[in-house]
Structures are given as structure tokens and as C-alpha cells.
């Protein structure tokens, strides 16, 4: 069977583009601008070669990134090798790995009470527990919400906006509002007492405080991850579900065998982003509970902040060492995400 000739798709004629520019008067401006930019770019290309031009275009962003990310990172590592209370590195004595030694000076890493920097290890434990609970809850709820919002329900647009709205609020505002709701004479206790119950000091009991920081965090950030998963669900071709429907496949099997595997790349992104964010949690928890009661909700970032700024002797070296440790953990999480993403793509 003869193959039909390949006819290129019709494209807009270059001549008509010029005529359009001439008509709307921009042709001359474009010509002037092009002539100004053209010769230095041509000269640069002769100097660095065609491939080098890619790096030239990346350079401004790299400089910005370098100045505001790599340079502070380097300075931070430098601080972590120094001691004393002076601010400038030149005035601080070099102590090598002493600060890391203080951080890891423990009888048992499982029991913070045996550690020299027990607040750091409490922060690590609390952050780990918070991350586990918060991420699992966040992902499950976001997934369920995305599935529901993907259905043809009445007011779908409204509900999508409602779930995303808390994401737009400042974390401090979110925490303050919930603090007012949860405090001794807050809205929630007013409701409880009106139903005949006793007031509960939600933010003064370690168990309740932990529950509420997870709750508030999930409530305020869920919309963002729901959006990512919703986009993933909408990218799944409808004919796959039609085929499953024709085969009378049970719904749970459709979800388990079709939806989840196809949604996997998005789920990985959501899990890793949620993990990174949870490990870095500070503002909401600091405003809501201040790390209390006791140190029940003290997170690693709050420990770093207090070590560097709140104590009378502002221990920049120790705080820098703790932040380097945190940075290593976050870097490891990022590498895991890259590995998963690459494997899925391949």
C-alpha cells in the first residue's frame, strides 16, 4: 500500500509576520533592539563557543543562587568550626569539630537525658515523631481529598478553593487563630463546656499539644499537596477507567492497580516535599506552643534559633553545627526524591 506523502502542517508565513510588525509600528523598535543586542552576543559566542552560551545565560541565576545560598552555606560551615560569642568569624576562635562533638556527646542517643545537648536530641526526637505523623496524615488526607475533588460533584470549584485557602494564609496567622481556639477560654472549650464537659488545657498536655501541632500543620498545608495530586489524577487518561469499567473491575482494585501506580510520581513528589517541610517546621509550632509544654513540641529548628539568638550567650557556633546536621538530613531526603523520580522516569 502506497504511503501517503507527508504534508507539513501549515505554519504562519514569515513574510506575514514582518508585515504585521510593520503595520503595528513595532518593526523598527525590534530592529533597533536586535541590532543593539546582536553584536555583543555574536562576539561572546565567538569567544565561548555555541555550547558555552548556555552557561552564559545561566550565569545571572547562578550568581544570585551562589550569593544567597552557597555563600551563606559556606559561612555557616565556617561558623560551625568556631566558638566564642563574637559575631564576626575573624573574631571567633577556631575549635574544629568541637561543636559537633558537643551535639553528639550522648550516653545513649535514644535517651536525650544522657546527652550534653539534650534539647537538641529532644528536638530531633520530636521532629522525627512530628514528621512521621504529619506526613502520613497529610498524604493520606490529600489523596482522599484529591480523589473526591476529581469527581463530578456539585460545587467542585468552590471546594477546591476552600481547601486551598489556608495555604495562602501566613503560618503565624494560622497558629495564632488556632491558639485562640484552643486556649483555656477559647472557642473549643466554650463548645465543650456548653455540652456539659470540662475544660481541657489542649496546649498544656504533651499528648494534646502534639496532636494539635500535627492537626494545624496538616490543615494549613493540605491544600497545596491536594492540588499536586489533583493535577496528577487529571493527567490519567479517562479511557483507562472506561476500560476498567467495561471489565466490571471493583473500585478498590481500580484504585490499587490503576490510580495509585499512575499517580506514583506525583505521590513521591508530595511525600518528599512534605517530609522536607515537616523537618523544617518552626513558625507554626513556635507560635502555637512555643515548643512546650516543657520540651514536648520543641523542634530542631527552634533549638537552632534559641541557641543562636535567645540565650544571653548567643552560641552561633553550636547553632551552626546543628543547622549543618539538619542540612545533611534534608540533602539526603532530596537525594532520595531524585533517585525515586529518576527510577520512575526510566
Amino acid at each position: 500500500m502506497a504511503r501517503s506523502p507527508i504534508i507539513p502542517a501549515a505554519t504562519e508565513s514569515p513574510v506575514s509576520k514582518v508585515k504585521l510588525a510593520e503595520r503595528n509600528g513595532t518593526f523598527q523598535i525590534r530592529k533597533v533592539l536586535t541590532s543593539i543586542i546582536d553584536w555583543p552576543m555574536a562576539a561572546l559566542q565567538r569567544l565561548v563557543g555555541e555550547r558555552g552560551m548556555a552557561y552564559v545565560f545561566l550565569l545571572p541565576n547562578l550568581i544570585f543562587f551562589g550569593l544567597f545560598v552557597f555563600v551563606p552555606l559556606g559561612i555557616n560551615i565556617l561558623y560551625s568550626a568556631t566558638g566564642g560569642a563574637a559575631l564576626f568569624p575573624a573574631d571567633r576562635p577556631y575549635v574544629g569539630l568541637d561543636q559537633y562533638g558537643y551535639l553528639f556527646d550522648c550516653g545513649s542517643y535514644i535517651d536525650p537525658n544522657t546527652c550534653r545537648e539534650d534539647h537538641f536530641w529532644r528536638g530531633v526526637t520530636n521532629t522525627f515523631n512530628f514528621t512521621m505523623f504529619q506526613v502520613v496524615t497529610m498524604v493520606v488526607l490529600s489523596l482522599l481529598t484529591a480523589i473526591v475533588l476529581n469527581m463530578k460533584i456539585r460545587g467542585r470549584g468552590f471546594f477546591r478553593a476552600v481547601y486551598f485557602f489556608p495555604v495562602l494564609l501566613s503560618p503565624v496567622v494560622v497558629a495564632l487563630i488556632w491558639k485562640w481556639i484552643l486556649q483555656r477560654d477559647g472557642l473549643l472549650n466554650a463548645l465543650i463546656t456548653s455540652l456539659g464537659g470540662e475544660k481541657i488545657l489542649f496546649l498544656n498536655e504533651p499528648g494534646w499539644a502534639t496532636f494539635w501541632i500535627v492537626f494545624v500543620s496538616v490543615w494549613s498545608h493540605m491544600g497545596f499537596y491536594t492540588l499536586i495530586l489533583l493535577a496528577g489524577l487529571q493527567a490519567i487518561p479517562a479511557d483507562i477507567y472506561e476500560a476498567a469499567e467495561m471489565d466490571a473491575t471493583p473500585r478498590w482494585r481500580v484504585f490499587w492497580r490503576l490510580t495509585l501506580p499512575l499517580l506514583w510520581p506525583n505521590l513521591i513528589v508530595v511525600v518528599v516535599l512534605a517530609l522536607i517541610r515537616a523537618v523544617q517546621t518552626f513558625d507554626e509550632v513556635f507560635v502555637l506552643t512555643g515548643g512546650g509544654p516543657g520540651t514536648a513540641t520543641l523542634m530542631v529548628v527552634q533549638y537552632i534559633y534559641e541557641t543562636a539568638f535567645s540565650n544571653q550567650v548567643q552560641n552561633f557556633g553550636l547553632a551552626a553545627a546543628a543547622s549543618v546536621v539538619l542540612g545533611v538530613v534534608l540533602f539526603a531526603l532530596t537525594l532520595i526524591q531524585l533517585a525515586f523520580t529518576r527510577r520512575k522516569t526510566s
Partner: protein
Amino acid sequence: MKGTTVFLGCFMLAASLLGHAQAQTTLRMTWYSDGNEGEVMSDLLRRFEEQNKDIKVVLDQVPFKAINENLPVQLAAGQGPDLARVADLGGVARYTLDLRPHLKDPAYFETNFGPFLEWMRVPGDTTSIPGIMTQLTLTGPFVNKTLFEQANVAMPGEKATWEEWAKAAKDVAAKVQAPFPVAIDRSGHRFFSLAISQGAKIFNEKGEPAVVDEGFKRAAQLVYDWHRNGVMSKELWGSVAGTAYRGANDEFKNAQVVMYVSGSWQIGQFDKTIGDAFDWVAVRTPCGPANCSGMPGGAALVAIKTTKSPQAVARLLEYLASENIAREFYERSLFVPGHLGLAKKGLEYKDASPQGRAALTVFGEGVAQLSPVANKLQGYVNNRVMFNAVISRLGQAIVGEATLDEAYRRITADVEQQIAERNKQ
């Protein structure tokens, strides 16, 4: 011709304005407020500028937390204001400017602020004049008298002990359903007033910190037991982590606290906000086995050494330290004066209510009860290291994360480690 005249006129006007602008010095003052003292200071500065047209003062009003956390970093970076109102006098001492060479009458400052100048100096310095006290403060209890009357419980007398007050407050709270029988600010400074009355010595023979002694332990045990038996609620000391400050002034203003151990800086705020909602009084600091001492304190307005206008700063401080201006400032802010001459003459506090005036009298009389240990602690350059260690570790013991013995061990270690870190060269 007309155009030339207009042009020349504009030129001359611009030149005169430029000349004026060049001659005017701008000073920046970083300030925090407990009550209305920010407004009072703004008014005084406006009048200063009217009398001194070559100086303009910009008053930057910031939260107290910014003074304690942000300002030291600014000063360390050499970026601070020309003057600042600070409470951590020892911590900021190394950034202050000695105004002695710029003052017309340094002897006036020595006479009227003498003992307090030591608090603003670095160890070893015995002569510098870095600033003036914006207030002298004293810790002490405020009592909701109306709740006592409603509960039909007699208020303990002047020499009553901490335990007697705790019992009375608990009885009142039980009868009137107040959630806070006794509230003490989550502050090491407040805790040490209790500790010193229990006999805490705080320093060893060499003058080095020896925080945990028998007196200290008695005080810690009291606070611990009060949290166990309901005299104190965990909502203050147990509610936040680390060195975070937590006061109960809002709860007191809302009549939820029977006895609130805070300090004289609250008088202005209470006088303005409580009104006739209920009767409140300041009472003498309860007694312990050793004494009935509170803790002195205060805030100072100090000159910063990075100022480019030391002469102008000196003129401003001379104005604010002058008797009439200082009197007006203390009277309108309802502060115990940090000016010895005025303290001796007495102030009238015309703007205060009878309750406010009575409270100021009680605190003024309490100055005579101050223990030398309390004065020494307030003047010690690393006192905040000790205050922070105490509230951080006792807070953990109160919520059950640690025992009292573990807390004592940690307090000692924290103080040693932080002072060692500060002294590293």
C-alpha cells in the same frame, strides 16, 4: 528679569534648607515599652527638638523581644542605633559609650545614678557613664483584693511567708473558681526573688556563680510543689520551652489570678487598663527564712559606642536626666525613679489612681528591704545566663520531663558551659 528673580529666590531657599539639613543631626533611639512610656518619651523628645533645633531624634519603638534578641546582634555587627533602652544591662555593657568626656556635669550623673552605673559597666570599669536609668524596678506581688473579699478570706499580713500567701491564695481561688491562685512570671529574675528570700547565696567566696545551694533548692521545691498541688498552674512555667518568657499580666487584668508575682513596671499598665473592674493592691514581698527581699532591676537608656554623634547623644541624655524632665517621665509613666535625688524627694504621680499611687509607695518602700545578694546578682554581667538556665530546666521538671535533681545538675552545667563559651577568645 522676573524669571531670573524667581530662579535666584529658589536657589537661595534651597541653599538655606540644605544648610539647615546639613547642620541637623539625626539620632536614632531604639525603645520598648511596658505601658505608656513610649508616648511619654515621644512627647519629651518633641520638646527636646523644639529647644534643640539642630538635633532630630527618631524613636524606633520595638517589642521587648527585639531588644533582647535582635539588638545584641545589631550591636555586634556594629550597626546599632545611637541610643537604646535595654534591660540586659550587663549583656549590652560592652557596646556602650562612655559619655563622661562629653557631659557638662558628670558629677550630676555620679550623684544621681551612681549605684546603677555599675550595672551598665563591663567588669573592671569603675568610671564610665554609659547612660541613665529609665526606671528602677522591683519584683513583688500584686493581689486581687476583690477576690479575697468575695471569698471572705483575710489577706496575710506584711511579714507573711510565701507558704502563708500560697495557702491563702489557694483558698480564695477554690471559693471563687479562679484558675490561677498564684502566678509567677516565667522569668528567672522573678524566681530569684523567691530563692534569695529562701537563703540562696548564688555566688561562692570567689564571686563566681554557685547557683544551686540549699536556699535555691528550697525555692525550686516550693515552685515544683505548687505546680503539683494546684497553687500554680502549668500554663505559665510549663507551657513553653527553653528560655521563653511568659507573663500573667493579661490573666491578672482579667481577674483570673489571685496573687501575681511580677514587678513594679506593671503598675502603669494595670492602672490604665483595670480601672474599676476590681480592687488590686501591691503587697510586700513575702518572707522566707532569710529575708523578705525582692529582686531589683530596671531598664537603662544607654549610648551606643558606634554613634557618630556622641556630643548630641550627651546633650539628649543631659536633657532626659535633668530633674524636671526625669520627674515628669517617671510620674507620667508611673515608674519607680532610677534617679536617687528624685527618689529622696519623692514623686507625686498626679496621673495615677489611688491604687496606682499606693502600689508605687509599696514598691518604693521595698527598696529598703533589698538583700545585698539581690543587688549583686542584678549587677552581675552574666545574670541572664543564670536566669535562662533556671526557667528552662525548672520548666522541664515541672512538666515531668526531668526530676528536680536532674534540673539542678543541668542548671549548673548550663551556666558553666555558657560562661565558658562567652569567655572563649
